[in-house]
């Protein structure tokens, strides 16, 4: 009967609120709570690390690329990925740690006049750590000539992922392409975010006719298929623009359509928060509009906005790759994953050099990781379980 005893004690005590004893800490800030909820998401954590890795690769592309991505090799068109070996067996030393790749033997099919590459067990190119290979400028201004790995011999080649139609090293191009593709996703979303927050904020704050008008515009944009619109705008870009101009123009075009989802989220959060009692309370405390938005409302939806923005990046990357793939997006000499996949556009090339699809694998990995990360962030965004 100890339960009844408890009930008795509780009934006699004036404070019946013993369910939530004051001994629980409850001093964690919003960020701590969100981080704790996020950490519980295994997949999101793994994705976070994958993305950190990919973005690091993109950031240090010049250093990581073993070859000049623009270097054309007529001898090695459509060369398959080389076999990489960590150890070498020789008569004298037995097994020794000497990372190397095998050289190519070219066989020409006399009938079809097609060249096929086979691995030559005899030719070995030793892969060096921090060799002095090709000259470039890190981030466009620090001259470097040493790279993470490479082969030093004059005639030695290192094509770990094979080459393309012009004999360019796919791995190096992939690393350089990561920079463009991953950054265009961020830049596009960044621009969308600015547009979305401003337009959505105006819509939510002023309401009435302005809100109505903006909502109709959003509705309109969302009901039009994006790809033809993007294609239309992208095709209209002047042909003589520089690579950089092209890059920014494409970013702008992507975000012209991409802002709608963010604006929608900002507006709906804004509206739901406006009717929260604690916002009314802040108003009655005498807080001005700016302080109400900055101090009382923004912390409540910043996490949602970041999550939504994260979930918008994959769409941007997909759009960029699709446009570039079709030849309407970024143009050579810019290297993006979409541009790389353009090489794989016809079956002939694909049949000869299936490794050209490797950039596709990275697109899929990136998009999956972004989605998992965004999902995890969205689930963790509201640790108080209130105001959905």
């Amino acid at each position: 009967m100890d339960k009844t005893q408890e009930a008795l004690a509780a009934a006699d005590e004036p404070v019946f609120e013993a369910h939530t004893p004051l001994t629980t800490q409850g001093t964690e800030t919003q960020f701590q709570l969100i981080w704790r909820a996020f950490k519980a998401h295994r997949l999101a954590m793994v994705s976070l690390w994958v993305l950190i890795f990919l973005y690091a690769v993109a950031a240090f592309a010049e250093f990581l690329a073993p070859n000049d991505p623009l270097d054309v090799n007529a001898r090695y068109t459509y060369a398959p990925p080389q076999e990489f070996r960590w150890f070498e067996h020789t008569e004298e030393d037995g097994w020794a740690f000497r990372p190397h790749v095998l050289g190519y033997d070219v066989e020409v099919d006399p009938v079809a006049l097609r060249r096929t590459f086979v691995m030559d067990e005899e030719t070995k190119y030793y892969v060096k750590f921090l060799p002095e290979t090709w000259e470039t400028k890190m981030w466009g201004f620090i001259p470097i000539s040493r790279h993470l790995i490479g082969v030093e011999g004059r005639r030695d080649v290192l094509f770990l992922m094979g080459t393309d139609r012009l004999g360019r090293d796919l791995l190096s191009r992939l690393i350089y392409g990561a920079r463009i593709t991953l950054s265009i996703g961020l830049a596009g979303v960044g621009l969308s975010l600015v547009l979305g927050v401003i337009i959505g904020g105006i819509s939510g704050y002023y309401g009435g006719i302005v809100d109505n008008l903006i909502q109709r515009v959003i509705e309109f944009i969302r009901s039009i298929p994006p790809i033809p619109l993007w294609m239309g705008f992208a095709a209209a870009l002047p042909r003589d623009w520089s690579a950089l101009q092209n890059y920014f123009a494409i970013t702008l075009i992507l975000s012209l359509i991409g802002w709608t989802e963010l604006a929608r989220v900002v507006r709906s959060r804004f509206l739901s928060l406006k009717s929260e009692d604690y916002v009314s309370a802040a108003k009655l405390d005498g807080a001005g509009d700016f302080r109400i938005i900055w101090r009382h409302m923004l912390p409540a939806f910043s996490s949602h906005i970041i999550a939504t923005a994260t979930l918008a990046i994959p769409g941007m990357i997909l759009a960029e790759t699709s446009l570039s793939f079709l030849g309407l997006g970024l143009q050579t000499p810019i290297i993006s994953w979409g541009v790389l996949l353009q090489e794989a556009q016809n079956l002939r090339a694909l049949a000869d050099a299936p490794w050209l699809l490797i950039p596709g694998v990275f697109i899929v990995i990136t998009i999956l990781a972004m989605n998992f990360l965004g999902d995890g962030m969205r689930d963790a965004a509201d640790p108080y379980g209130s105001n959905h």
Partner: protein
Amino acid sequence: MLRFIANRMFAMVIMTLVLSFVCFFIIQLPPGDVMTAYAAQLAAAGDSSSADTIARMRAAYGLDEPFLTQYFIWLKSLLSGNLGYSFTLQRPVSEIVSSRIGISLAVELLAIVVLWGIAIPVGIYSAVRRYSVGDMFATVFGFIGIAVPNFLLALLIMYIIYLYTGTAVDGLFSAEYVQARWSLAKLWDFFTHVWIPVIVIATGGAAQIIRILRANLLDELNKPYVVTARAKGMSERRLIMRYPVRVAMIPLVATVGWVLPTVISSSIVTAIVLNLPTLSPILLRSLLTQDMYLAGALILFMGLLTLIGTLVSDLLLAWIDPRIRTGMTDG
């Protein structure tokens, strides 16, 4: 209800006008006017009479008028069925459109049917049997559908078929049927080809719909009215189909509005990769050659298609949701 329909119709008309304006804007976007590209082409071909022809055509299209006037001239000719002239293909745009529209619509409609045919049962299954093996498969499929770009999926399928059969998938008909009249044999040939683009187009949309339907249904499964139905003594299977599924389907009908843009977008990319005889490869070609009247007309047409789809889904929604039908809300 009538008021609802009237409002939607009116919105549709406005949207169409805005759409036409956007399309005309795109037509006008490239530097110079539409004739510049054509003139360059003629000059390249060594046509000496070009200057004269160009001047005449300029006048006909009102190209020296201000932007808005040009727009109205264009709009007026659109309304009278004249979609403009393709300078690269040397044919009226309306002719090009009408020769390929049937196949375009057929592929897209088939894709939508397949998309819903996959998404609805899978969505229901994975919500009702949450965390089952089937649900996990559905989740994996969902992520593939979201993460693999359409063109990549099309390439992959093409490549895999090539690896295993040695044949190259291309277009919608075998060579002997391309020019043939429609017959049962040709129809069969069509179906043996069309499944590839249909599956590619449907995958992305289906993945999204499965996610939405699953989430909606999971919400609905915990609603008090489900408990009420249980308390009546209904069997679980009948109860789920009759109540939560019915309610969860309503927002799904509304998604027709945005499934269409997705389907059309992905059908464009897919059709280009697989070289289908639809409107999409023409759109790409016209854009690459800056044949802007053709491109503008095609974009307008594709946009219009989704607007009609949105209208249909709105009306459908009003028809199946009593809350809208009785004028409680405006959806």
